[in-house]
């Protein structure tokens, strides 16, 4: 049912990974999965082309050689079928990691995610746990056009019964998976496609780590830039640009989109009194709308300017680069919104 994977072949080569401090988002996710597979026999990965192909985006490259086709399990193009099978296996005590190629394809499995994964615990009066982890690629920026580029995190973040994570840093890419697998409830992890190649120094193993709180990635006085996942690097760049202009921006990385860490958001707004929410999803009824509403609920009396939203344009994401760029939040948009807020 799904269209073919973008890009002909995986982009990294496992055998030439040098001993270096540098790593990439892709490698960190792979390392996290490898660690989980080694640590727990119940963990297995399944999805379209996760085995020999190495994953549509090369994330699982090399794993099938190490763990075999039973635990690195290629599936037919049956999103509902294999996501449901992952849910069922989780119900039976396994710890499946199910990879869906893109969030657009996940709509074919939405029945399973919403009607089963998110619902079974409640519908059964607490009897049926679904400790599944569903990873999927999200977001635009790679000219993959309107059926491979959307950001539907906000939709998922509206579903009670699941946890929704959006790593935006190498450290989160590396360390979110283990607590997600340990969670007795379903966890959906969104990986922004434009982050896979993001590189940086290997993050140290954190001493304390959770998958519920937002993180302040940069402190500031004048305005809170609230974002997550693929927009995070842009927001950090915007904060840098604003600093050069004398505006001190605080950057809040949501990390968990469900539950939302309202306390951290409100605390930041209480410091800066202005908020700009950046989310690649559509504005109407989207995640940014939810966060703006939370700010109104939790930090109304701290607001010194209307909440600004920088969202994806309300169009199906177009193919040409210039239009795609125009359709999603860019550094300049974020800077402009922050300036409006600061006034």
């Amino acid at each position, binding site marked *: 049912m799904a269209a073919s994977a973008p890009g002909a072949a995986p982009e990294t080569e496992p055998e030439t990974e040098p001993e270096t401090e540098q790593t990439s988002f892709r490698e960190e996710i792979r390392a996290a999965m490898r660690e989980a597979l080694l640590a727990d026999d119940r963990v297995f990965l399944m999805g379209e082309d996760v085995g020999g192909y190495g994953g549509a985006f090369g994330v699982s490259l090399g794993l099938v050689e190490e763990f075999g086709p039973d635990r690195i399990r290629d599936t037919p193009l049956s999103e509902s079928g294999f996501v449901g099978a992952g849910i069922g296996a989780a119900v039976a005590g396994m710890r499946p990691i199910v990879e869906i190629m893109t969030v657009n394809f996940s709509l074919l499995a939405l029945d399973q995610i919403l009607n089963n994964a998110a619902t079974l615990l409640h519908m059964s009066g607490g009897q049926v746990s679904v400790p599944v982890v569903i990873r999927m690629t999200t977001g635009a920026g790679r000219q993959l056009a309107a059926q491979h580029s959307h950001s539907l995190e906000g939709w998922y973040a509206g579903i009670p019964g699941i946890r929704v994570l959006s790593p935006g840093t190498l450290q989160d890419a590396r360390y979110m998976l283990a607590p997600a697998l340990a969670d007795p409830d379903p966890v959906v992890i969104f990986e922004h496609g434009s982050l896979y190649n993001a590189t940086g120094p290997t993050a140290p193993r954190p001493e304390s780590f959770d998958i519920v709180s937002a993180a302040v990635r940069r402190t500031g006085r004048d305005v809170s830039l609230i974002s997550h996942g693929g927009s995070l690097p842009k927001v950090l760049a915007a904060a840098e640009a604003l600093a050069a202009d004398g505006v001190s921006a605080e950057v809040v990385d949501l990390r968990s989109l469900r539950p939302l860490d309202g306390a951290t958001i409100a605390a930041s707004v209480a410091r800066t009194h202005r908020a700009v929410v950046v989310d690649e999803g559509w504005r109407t009824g989207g995640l940014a709308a939810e966060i703006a509403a939370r700010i109104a609920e939790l930090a109304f009396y701290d*607001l*010194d*300017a209307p909440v600004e939203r920088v969202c994806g344009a309300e169009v199906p994401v177009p193919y040409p680069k210039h239009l795609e760029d125009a359709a999603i939040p860019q550094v300049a948009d974020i800077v402009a919104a922050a300036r409006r807020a600061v006034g």
Partner: protein
Amino acid sequence: MPSLGADMTEGALVEWLVQPGDTVVKGQAVAVVDTAKSAIEVECFADGVVEELLVEPGTTVPVGTVLAVLGEAHEAGPAPTKAAPAKAAAAKPTAKKPAAKKPATKKSVTRKPAAGKRPATQKKPAAQPADRHPPEAGPSTSRVSPLVRRLARERGVDLGAVHGSGPGGRVTRADIDVAARPAGRARTTPYARRIATELGVDLDGVVGTGPEGAIRAGDVRTAAAAGTAAPTRTATPPVTVSPDRTAARRHAIADLMSRSKHEIPHYYLATTIDLAAAVTWMREHNRGVPVAERLVPSALLLKAAAVAAKQVPEMNGFWIDDGQVRSEHVHLGVAVALREGGLVAPALHDADRLPLPDLMAGLRDLVRRARAGRLRSSETADPTITVTDLGDQGVEAVFGVIYPPQVALVGFGKVTDRPAAVDGLLGVRPCVTATLSADHRAGDGAVGARYLALVDRLLQSPEEL
């Protein structure tokens, strides 16, 4: 009575949707008419003001009967006062319908030009300070829907003072809501409102610098620190949200002026300035430009006051924390009396650098918006010196009270022809008395004298202003 169908010969007027004095627009429903088939709304086909309703509700009249008389729309508000406006009927031109062939019909719907009426823009003599009498409604008051008109009436909102935010400046329902907001509810951010409570600052005295004049936290802090806003007295409940904005404003002015007189050691200077050169130059200038762009003497006086302030920087700035803070820019505060009482003094930014036509336009705009309550935040925030011109009130001289923390206030009286000695002869010249109220802490009389003398000199070379 319009023909609302080929077989319609008469109709019963059920209800008027408008009243005499209402402004109506083309296409607006003005009445409900009952035909043999159903009740139908009658729309009018011209803009104008309803002058007279000729048919009583409940009356059945033949198609073609004139139902009402419309007058020319004019800018000055709802009540038509012109003696003999041209008549126009609200009825549909039934002459188009073969079924209705009343000869009178055609005539009654022909809209004649308003012969006896001068266009508003040509009406004022150039010498009159037009800026004191701006048109009430920038956007045409005729662009108001019946609903909005009704709401405005119910809620006591002066439509002429409402800024239309709709397409083409149309006044929307939301605009009425804004205009009818209870007094004392200045547009204020939640955080600013909170800290105003905490700091005991009365928001009515705070100048907002946010979008559309919104008061933000910084404004409250500035007000609290500089004390320019009336602090809430301990005798009164904290944050008085006055039920009457006018009274609240009076209160703020009272506080401010008391503080000024209490704290600032004023000294006063006056001089009479011969405006012959300025007036002659102005007339010459006005001859060459459209009516709307003509200058008034006030513009020249303001410009001279501004340029002089730039050149005598001691007069331009503030006295804060026992020290003088001079201002790079000359933001000329212009005292504007409000209709409902009270006074505001918004800034003409960089008035010293504005060419006269721009200054004139800016002045008109500023006064109009000041009276409509639509000042921009920056305008209310930062005057560096204030000018008050009471000439149109007929007085010869005004000795004003300084706006803290400014250090000077310039006053102009009426421009009048006075006997004057010129080149050893007695002549009649247009003169004005210019005064200066200045803060003795920031400077001494000699500086003030230098300032006034400079104003005089500048006005003798108007072409250079």
